């Protein structure tokens, strides 16, 4: 807590300094002698042209228009002539006159708009791209006002499924491109200005644009790590011209968007008694959980969810940027701060802060030599309540807590917290939050690179880029002694802390040669890449110390209260690669690209360390053919493209191929001495090789009727040779606890799908309209796994719960596996009619002999007269089949308004808010619709206690599965730029104020908190992937907040 206060003070200081800095710029600027002319460069369809040259005629003063086509120019006097030029457009000259703001519309020469997209190790004109890529510009990113870039990409990147792991501030996202393809992580490779990194360190306002390489041909140039697709982030760069200072800030309040209703105290007692009587009809009144007298005195009881709801949880964001330069040097720097409080919180234990610093400069030191660097530093600090799986999930505990327990008890026992009078093992969940969840995580990440680019001769360019990341992570956690129930206690205070340092470097060297031979254009690129990392980690745990201060680790050997000091360090993960690409086009009409990458990775044994990853692609701009001329009146551009390529995926953990020995949990005591033991911890597989992702993509890009553009892609992505642990028989000695199964190549999955993207942009006088719609369909099917089946975990929903998801040939990855139900037995006659006649013996027997009226009817799918595992089948698919989004942006004079919709369909969610192994758990109010007599319900069975013969809920069935489709109004934003009115004659370029609502509405049939369920694979503290195939399981997933915010964007 103390540390937190200190950081707060620091941030306040930073925020104040930002403001001082900001106003000093305003002050300075307003006394500037020269006049500033600003403007926008547009094409004929009113689309901004970024990168257009804007200079004063006869001088070198000037710069380039930014991504919005905007420019700002110091003009010495009214007689000056401003020259605006851009490749493919006719150059214009305009007299400066007295104007301060000029809008310029450039006429196209003969060609279309040459939008630039980032591809591997270079850029390419969009119209020449033959792979499937999608680009998101800062305009789209900034519209959403989010703290995380992943959130901004939701709904505008067809083919990407982006799911927030949970709604806790600072939570990460699960991203996959074109379906789940590998058990070794489906997270795309993220390159930040070419350096492998992580999206969670970025402030969205620092991002210029994001390019996503979806098909294998585009990603193949990243070979070994491109299997799950590649996200290329381009950070904002300095632009030559007058310095532009920008300040962006918002303040928001967040709330729970939807509440789940739980039984109040009286309802709870009534239902528990009913369950008891249903189970044991002969129970006498004195043996009931509650006497009628007690029930009569009960009221609403404790609203546990209400207690942990943090109303109007504040979030703040400040971003100060300075951007400028001249024809020799340009720079961009920014300072940002974000803080967020959780909407479910207790004693400020759900909290997130991020401080970021970005600096990059580019220098033209010689006519043939450019150098530059990018550096960013991010500090993140977070406190989180336990969430995710059922262990330590605070929301699961809140949802199942007994509402009769008072928050505070009348007696001094149990530290003043209320206790259960029903069962001494029931725990007050808020007391649990008070004593647990004290972990603080701090991350400090430095990411940077330096580069040099030499123009050797005309058309021949060499670029060398050395970059890296240095990450530090520390955690501290403590638990004091307490006892809050018979089963929840801590007898000795416990303190844990850990520290990690990770250094990673990346060294790229690329030689590019470009030449035109008449109408033939050839670009050849060859390069090398080397990567390596060092890691260091130490953590310790101390028990027994003065409870109000952290312990000091002194002489560990004599301190018997130190129960654990662990550490690991090493050098691993080294890779080196050679790669090349040949681009060819003829008259920008026929295009072809081929790439090849050769990767060597330390994660494989010498037998299979090398992987080759080829790709080919081709495009045909049909609209340039003469036979298409009749259609030119409406079809502006049409390009057909096709690609094929292969990528690789590595095992998530180094040394999978080696048989190592280990000593943990292998000791034995001889005499009084604990002797270390050592034995193999896994079997070797020297032949382990790369997972391969092969993908074919066929698509087209088009522009028509001037204002429309439409893209389509069909793909078939086959992942083969998964690196998976192969279960081996116990006689091989692999008992699965301290000796793990060998990793083998086995397992294939096919993802097939289509994607559409439709854009419409038009200006009607002062009214601007921009509509983007995206739609993607994906079908996932496992075609091969070892022994045709990989079983899912047990004990996922509660302790002892049966297997509920599987990976099996012919089914979607991680499909839900359980019983199909057929309603509820309404009476005994119905039970007696549910029979099976053995065709051999002619004997008839009851299929569910243990059932009582009110119990669930399970389908005997294999027709063997009994309900058992063989009747289980696919009862749901956690993978969304459809992902879509719609963005509408409009502006009129100074006003702008945007709406962003996003949705998924075709996926299922398993909900389990109640712990079935604790039969006194509370219920949601859905249980009030239970079966209580013939005709009362045909879905929710009668309430019973555990051990009930029919296993109404213990049998995992479609009763627990719901449709997870949803449509979300992700953001609505209304802004006004004061520059257009009261600030017209000031140096201010933009003074936009806006109000915005995030996650305003969600349309769904799902009855839980939030249909966006981030449950899924995670890495445990040893770096092992846990629940690699599970998703869509809601055990009390921290829901996304609904946020209202007000903010400003200021530029001058």
């Amino acid at each position, binding site marked *: 807590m103390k540390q937190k206060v200190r950081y707060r003070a620091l941030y306040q200081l930073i925020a104040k300094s930002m403001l001082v800095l900001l106003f000093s710029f305003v002050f300075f600027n307003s006394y500037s002698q020269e006049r500033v002319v600003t403007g926008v460069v547009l094409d004929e369809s009113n689309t901004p042209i970024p990168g257009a040259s804007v200079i004063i005629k006869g001088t070198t003063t000037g710069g380039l228009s930014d991504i919005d086509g905007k420019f700002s120019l110091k003009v010495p006097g009214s007689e000056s002539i401003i020259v605006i030029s851009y490749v493919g457009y006719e150059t214009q000259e305009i007299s400066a006159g007295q104007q301060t703001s000029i809008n310029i519309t450039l006429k196209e020469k003969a060609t279309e708009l040459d939008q630039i997209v980032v591809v591997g190790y270079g850029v390419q004109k969009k119209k020449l791209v033959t792979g499937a890529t999608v680009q998101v510009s800062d305009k789209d990113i900034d519209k959403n006002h989010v703290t995380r870039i992943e959130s901004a990409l939701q709904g505008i990147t067809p083919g990407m499924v982006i799911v927030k792991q949970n709604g806790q501030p600072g939570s990460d996202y699960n991203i996959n491109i074109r379906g789940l393809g590998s058990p070794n992580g489906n997270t795309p490779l993220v390159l930040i200005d070419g350096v492998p990194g992580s999206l969670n360190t970025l402030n969205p306002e620092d991002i210029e644009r994001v390019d996503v390489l979806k098909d294998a041909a585009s990603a193949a140039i990243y070979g070994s790590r491109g299997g799950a697709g590649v996200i290329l982030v381009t950070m904002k760069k300095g632009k030559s011209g007058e310095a532009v200072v920008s300040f962006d800030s918002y303040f928001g309040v967040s709330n729970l968007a939807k509440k789940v209703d739980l039984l109040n105290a009286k309802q709870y007692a009534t239902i528990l008694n009913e369950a008891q009587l249903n*189970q044991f009809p002969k129970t006498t009144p004195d043996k009931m959980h509650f006497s009628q007298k007690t029930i009569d005195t009960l009221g609403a009881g404790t609203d546990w969810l209400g207690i942990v709801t943090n109303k109007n949880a504040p979030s703040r964001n400040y971003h100060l940027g300075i951007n400028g330069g001249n024809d020799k040097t340009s720079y961009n720097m920014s300072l940002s701060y974000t803080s967020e409080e959780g909407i479910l919180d207790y004693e400020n234990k759900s909290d997130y802060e991020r401080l970021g610093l970005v600096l990059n400069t580019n220098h033209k030191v010689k006519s043939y030599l450019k150098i530059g660097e990018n550096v960013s530093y991010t500090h993140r600090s977070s406190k989180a309540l336990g969430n995710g799986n059922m262990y330590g999930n605070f929301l699961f505990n809140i949802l199942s807590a007994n509402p009769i327990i008072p928050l505070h008890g009348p007696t001094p026992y149990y530290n003043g917290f209320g206790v259960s009078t029903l069962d001494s093992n029931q725990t007050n969940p808020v007391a649990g939050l008070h004593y647990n969840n004290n972990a603080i995580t701090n991350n400090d990440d430095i990411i940077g690179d330096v580069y040099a680019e030499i123009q050797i001769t005309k058309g021949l360019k060499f670029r060398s880029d050395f970059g890296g990341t240095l990450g530090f992570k520390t955690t501290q956690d403590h638990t004091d002694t307490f006892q809050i129930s018979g089963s929840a206690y801590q007898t000795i205070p416990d303190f844990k802390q850990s520290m990690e340092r990770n250094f990673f470097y990346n060294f790229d060297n690329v030689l590019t040669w470009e030449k035109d031979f008449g109408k033939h254009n050839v670009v050849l690129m060859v390069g090398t890449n*080397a990567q390596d990392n060092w890691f260091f980690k130490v953590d310790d745990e101390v028990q027994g110390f003065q409870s109000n201060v952290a312990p000091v680790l002194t002489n560990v050997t004599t301190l018997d209260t130190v129960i654990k000091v662990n550490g690991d360090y090493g050098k691993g993960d080294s890779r080196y690669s050679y790669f090349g690409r040949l681009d060819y086009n003829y008259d920008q009409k026929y295009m072809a690209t081929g790439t090849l990458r050769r990767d060597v990775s330390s994660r494989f044994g010498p037998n299979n360390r090398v992987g080759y990853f080829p790709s080919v692609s081709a495009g045909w701009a049909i609209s340039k053919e003469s036979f298409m001329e009749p259609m030119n009146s409406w079809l502006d551009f049409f390009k057909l493209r096709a690609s094929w390529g292969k990528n690789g995926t590595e095992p998530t953990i180094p040394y999978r191929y080696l048989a190592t020995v280990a000593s943990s949990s292998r000791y034995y005591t001889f005499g009084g001495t604990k002797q270390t033991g050592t034995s193999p911890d896994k079997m070797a597989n020297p032949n382990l090789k790369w997972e391969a992702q092969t993908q074919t993509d066929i698509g087209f890009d088009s522009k028509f009727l001037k204002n429309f553009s439409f893209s389509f892609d069909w793909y078939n992505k086959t992942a083969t040779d998964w690196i998976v642990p192969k279960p081996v028989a116990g006689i091989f000695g692999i008992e699965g606890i301290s000796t793990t199964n060998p990793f083998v190549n086995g397992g294939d999955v096919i993802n097939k799908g289509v994607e559409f993207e439709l854009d419409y942009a038009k200006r009607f006088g002062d009214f601007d309209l921009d509509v983007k719609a995206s739609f993607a369909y994906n079908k996932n099917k496992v075609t091969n796994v070892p022994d045709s089946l990989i079983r899912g975990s047990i004990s996922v929903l509660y302790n002892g719960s049966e297997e509920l998801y599987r990976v099996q040939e012919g089914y979607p990855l991680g499909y839900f596996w359980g019983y199909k139900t057929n309603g509820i037995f309404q009476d005994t006659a119905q039970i007696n009619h549910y029979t099976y006649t053995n065709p051999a013996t002619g004997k008839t027997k009851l299929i569910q002999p243990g059932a009582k009226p009110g119990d669930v009817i399970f389908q005997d799918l294999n027709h063997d007269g009994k309900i058992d595992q063989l009747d289980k089948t696919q009862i749901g698919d956690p993978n969304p089949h459809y992902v879509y989004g719609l963005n509408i942006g409009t502006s009129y004079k100074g006003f702008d308004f945007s709406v962003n919709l996003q949705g998924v369909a075709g996926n299922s969610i398993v909900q389990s808010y109640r712990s079935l192994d604790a039969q006194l758990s509370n219920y949601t109010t859905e249980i009030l619709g239970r079966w209580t007599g013939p005709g009362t319900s045909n879905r929710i069975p009668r309430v019973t206690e555990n051990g009930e013969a029919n296993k109404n809920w213990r049998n995992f069935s479609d009763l627990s599965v719901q449709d997870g489709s949803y449509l979300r109004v992700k953001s609505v934003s209304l802004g006004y730029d004061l520059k257009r009115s009261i600030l017209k004659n000031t140096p201010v370029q933009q003074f936009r104020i806006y109000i915005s609502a995030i996650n305003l509405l969600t349309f769904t049939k799902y009855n839980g908190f939030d249909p966006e369920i981030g449950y899924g694979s995670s890495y445990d503290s040893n770096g092992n992937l846990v629940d690699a195939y599970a998703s869509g399981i809601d055990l009390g997933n921290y829901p996304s907040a609904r946020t209202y915010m007000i903010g400003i964007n200021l530029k001058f």
Partner: protein
Amino acid sequence: MKIMKRILLFIIIVLSVIGCKKDFADRLPTTSNIVENFYKTPNDALQALTAIYNMNLRDDWWSSIIVSEIASDNCAGGGGSTDGGGYQLYDRAVQQPDAGGNASLYLWKTYYGGIYRANVYLQSEKNVDWTGKEALRAQYIGEARFLRAYFHFYLTRLFGEIPFLDHPLAPNEPIPGRTPAEDLYAKIIADLKYSATYCLSQPYGAMKLDNWGHATKWAAEAMLARVYLFYSGYYNKPDIKGFTAINARDAIDTVYNLSGHVLVDTFASLWIVPAASQHKTYAGEINSEVVWSIRYMSGGGLDTYQRMVGPRNTNVDPYGQGWGACTVLPTLWRAYDTADLRRYATILDWAGEGKTYKYVTNTQAQYTGYNLKKYENLSENSKPVFPGSGDWQTNNAEDFIVIRFADVLLMGAELHVITGDNGTTALTYLNKVRTRAFGGDISHNYATATIDNIMNERRLELVFEDSRYWDILRSCKGDFTKLVSILTYHDPNDAANFATDANSAETNYLNVDGNNFVDKKGLFQLPQSELDLMKGVIKQNPGYN
């Protein structure tokens, strides 16, 4: 000139790039060794040997002790009424549908895990430099072979003929089939004979404390007798490829004459809770009666049976709470003579001790009025007085005595009777146990040693020591219909306090049909997932299909 400068700069950078070492992608873990290069010194060998012993600390709901005691006529399954009746399955020898037929998976994997580590040891110790330490090498091999034999023996008692493995299986090696019983037992005997020759052989008292826990010559000799008795009884054969009752008898006599092991004076002092409940001095984990024990340690190797057998939700000093498993059958209580001091030390009689069992309504299954005392855990209040501390779920650390000298004496008595010299030696051995049970009162001593009274004495002496069920099986001499009368249990009057409502799960009843065991020959179900992985090379035991 300008071009030259550019090219020069380019060359410098290119040279620095290709300066990359060839073994750039060769990496080995920094903080762990690999199998090929670890085993070098005798200390490495000791660590590898220790890892084999460690497999004994694997402790689970389904340990051999819990499983065999429940299956026997000593205990019911007990536990929670909502636990799903897993324990009761062993009482009924029925298929385990809920666990996917995998209730015994743990046992299977643990024992084969131990065999694997023993075989890794025996294969890798060849790489160790043993110069000048040849005796130590033979001793360690002896211990590894002892453990390999012990794991195979415990597996075969549970599952019948199982594959004997004398080397770690390579990943691509074919799955071996079941080893015929005679070969399997001959290999076990061969291992134990080696151990009896080369393991530590100092008598108790002369043995260095540091060596306590290592399998000794005495443990190996006693195990030879245990293996012989089980094989000759269960398969009704006089010898294991030439290893006869006389060899087994001589093995026991060697332990009796040379090991220095003797009975401690007071039966109750052998375990913490029985000692505490009678205000006796606890003899400690290292005492003259312990021939070989599993050495549990606080804070690791949860000995589950201790927490499982404690009374459910009930802490009555000195009895610490547990999960109420293995409730004792009243028939066992009644089998004791009232003057037999072992009864009070072995069984907790709630009514008789005037104590209240506070289980929450409907949560204790198969409550009988009796709980176990041996290996029960101490209540929190008693812990300052007696050893052990910390959480009752995770910090139970009492050693489990695998071979107790009383068992050696009883095996000796039996073998002397079998080999015909049923004169004084058998009776001496038997009455040593008997006399102590009655506090030195010799009036209860037997006049003659017969198989019947030896088996009766074994039953009373060795409750909850993983002995009774195997004694029952071997006493069948291949005729398993004898199990019906021994194992059948139906006596609702003994179970006044458990749920009798027809709706409650069947597993809450105390209703055991011994017929279930007959066609199965008393063996348990092989874990289904293992059979799947072995691709039909090994078939399910009879009676479980």
